[in-house]
């Protein structure tokens, strides 16, 4: 025993081990903790400052490599884009005509303007997960900007990225849907069968996740789109997640599972949006939303003491709202991670329990960008109280992927698609 205490290195090792063991016991598993501890916050805040600058440098390096390897491809892409632009211009004009016609029809029908604001906060990705074990990233907004744990994180096109996992004062960590700790209540868009989308340690390297807990008679096929089901109380219903690549049967659990490729390319995210509304609030929407986007610099949303939000969006770049109950209107995306958009026809999910107006389409063209106009046709459906009542055939959403260019945090000229967010209040409240 005496020899033991004479060996200082051994004493240090044992003492350090004990201290760390106690620390692991206290802070070990962070899942479930509402707040980060002071040390985490300090490290995160200090690192965030340097990471903001460094992430730009990292992007610069990767851009250099990409530039030299892609000149030829860019030329070809340029030709294609020019051709596409002509087509899109035509569609925008068509859509504008439809929009005006729609407004007239709405007036005639005297449908109630039942709008709700989606309160989105724009944030920049400043760092990625330092380890190879998880799939997460850090954004430059924290509790000072009203970010809270578990808030959903989306692209500008309202495609799901993940959720807020840890929040510091000026930063927040977001886990993507690829992360093994992520779980999302999901639904096959075509058949409305539900399951749970989970991150998978092995599939993560292929940029895929796993849609599990599907019964054997689930109607799911490769190519189906998966969206949030609204169950679980974290994500609102109707956010597009990804596309089914492969369906397999799990003999041990007598169920099916599918590998799903997210719509969003998680490795190329630079700008994201945090949805600050509580899911219950969105759930009460009746099929139409208006999107409010903070750009962070001129954050003017104020919260009243009773929790209601008075939106006084003074930002010059506030998004223009569009109301489309049935089809997705596309817009110039400011999220570079957003990749392929749906091109197949999507049934309407206007299933609100109140007064809802479906099938309205609009397109807002933003300045400078050629937005792909969406075409939607008719199909104005009246509301129904039943959930998941698909309505109004013939809604086609032709949302092409749009150019992403803005490096700032504002999203000018966004036109939100209410249809994809059409929530069902009764379903959301479990």
């Amino acid at each position, binding site marked *: 025993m005496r020899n033991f205490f004479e060996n200082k290195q051994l004493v240090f090792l044992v003492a350090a081990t004990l201290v*760390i063991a106690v620390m692991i016991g206290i802070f070990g598993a962070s899942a479930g903790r509402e707040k980060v501890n002071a040390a985490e916050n300090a490290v995160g805040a200090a690192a965030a400052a340097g990471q903001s600058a460094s992430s730009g440098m990292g992007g610069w390096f990767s851009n250099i490599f990409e530039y030299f390897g892609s000149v030829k491809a860019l030329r070809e892409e340029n030709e294609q884009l020019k051709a596409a632009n002509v087509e899109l211009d035509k569609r925008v004009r068509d859509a504008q005509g439809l929009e005006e016609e729609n407004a007239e029809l709405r007036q005639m029908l005297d449908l109630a303007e039942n709008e709700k604001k989606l309160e989105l906060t724009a944030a920049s990705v400043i760092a990625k997960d330092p380890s190879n074990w998880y799939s997460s990233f850090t954004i430059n907004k924290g509790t000072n900007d009203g970010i809270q744990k578990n808030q959903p994180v989306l692209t500008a096109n309202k495609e799901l990225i993940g959720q807020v996992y840890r929040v510091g004062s000026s930063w927040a960590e977001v886990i993507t849907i690829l992360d093994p700790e992520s779980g999302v209540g999901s639904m096959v868009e075509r058949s409305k069968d539900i399951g749970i989308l989970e991150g998978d*340690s092995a599939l993560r*390297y292929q940029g895929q996740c796993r849609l599990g807990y599907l019964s054997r008679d689930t109607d799911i096929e490769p190519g189906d789109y998966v969206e949030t089901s609204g169950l679980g109380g974290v994500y609102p219903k109707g956010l597009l997640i990804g596309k089914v690549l492969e369906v397999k049967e799990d003999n041990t659990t007598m169920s099916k599972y599918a590998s799903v490729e997210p719509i969003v390319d998680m490795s190329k995210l630079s700008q994201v949006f945090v949805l600050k509304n509580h899911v219950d609030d969105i759930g009460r929407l009746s099929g139409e939303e208006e999107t409010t986007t903070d750009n962070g610099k001129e954050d003017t949303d104020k919260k009243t003491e009773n929790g209601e939000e008075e939106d006084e969006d003074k930002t010059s770049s506030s998004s223009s709202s569009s109301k489309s109950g049935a089809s997705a209107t596309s817009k110039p995306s400011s999220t570079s991670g957003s990749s392929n958009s749906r091109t197949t026809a999507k049934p309407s999910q206007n299933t609100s329990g109140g007064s809802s107006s479906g099938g309205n389409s609009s397109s807002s063209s933003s300045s400078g960008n050629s937005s792909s106009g969406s075409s939607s046709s008719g199909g104005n459906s009246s509301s129904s109280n039943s959930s998941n009542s698909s309505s109004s055939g013939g809604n086609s959403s032709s949302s092409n992927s749009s150019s992403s260019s803005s490096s700032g945090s504002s999203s000018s000229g966004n036109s939100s698609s209410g249809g994809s967010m059409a929530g069902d209040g009764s379903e959301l409240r479990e």
Partner: protein
Amino acid sequence: MQIVFYGIWLILLAVFQPTLVRELAIWGIAPNLFLCFIVMTGFFRGKTEGAVCGMIFGLVYDLMIGRMIGVSSLSYLYIGFAAGFLSERFFSGGKRLAGTVTVAAGTLAAALIYYLARLMVRGDIGFVTAIFRTAFPEAIYNAVVGFLLAFPMLWLMKLLRLKRIS
């Protein structure tokens, strides 16, 4: 001078690991500068500094990841100590190439400890994925980066007049 040396490196690693280094990922695997630095510190500065550096840098690394706080700290403590021990015992003052091999071995050891901890806490990862898909590629990548990292480390040590163990 030691504090300046480690302070500079801590800031550099904390800033570059989640940003610039992640951009260098190949097939989803990026090198771990923290681990490379800890092993090389043990190698050049001895087991005591290796252990202390491993514990502190590992703790910062844990806080940055924010999942299982303390696990990396504990494993890096022992890896830093072991690197210093090997250096003192077998390589007399730390040869760069020997340090590179130790970095690879340390990466595998750290990955194994992390895998076991995660298996106990969550059980959401398979052995094959953890070791063959994550640990081995990272070990190779770390070995290369560790070799390169030794140059600026030794340069700064020389600048600050910090001696290598002998």
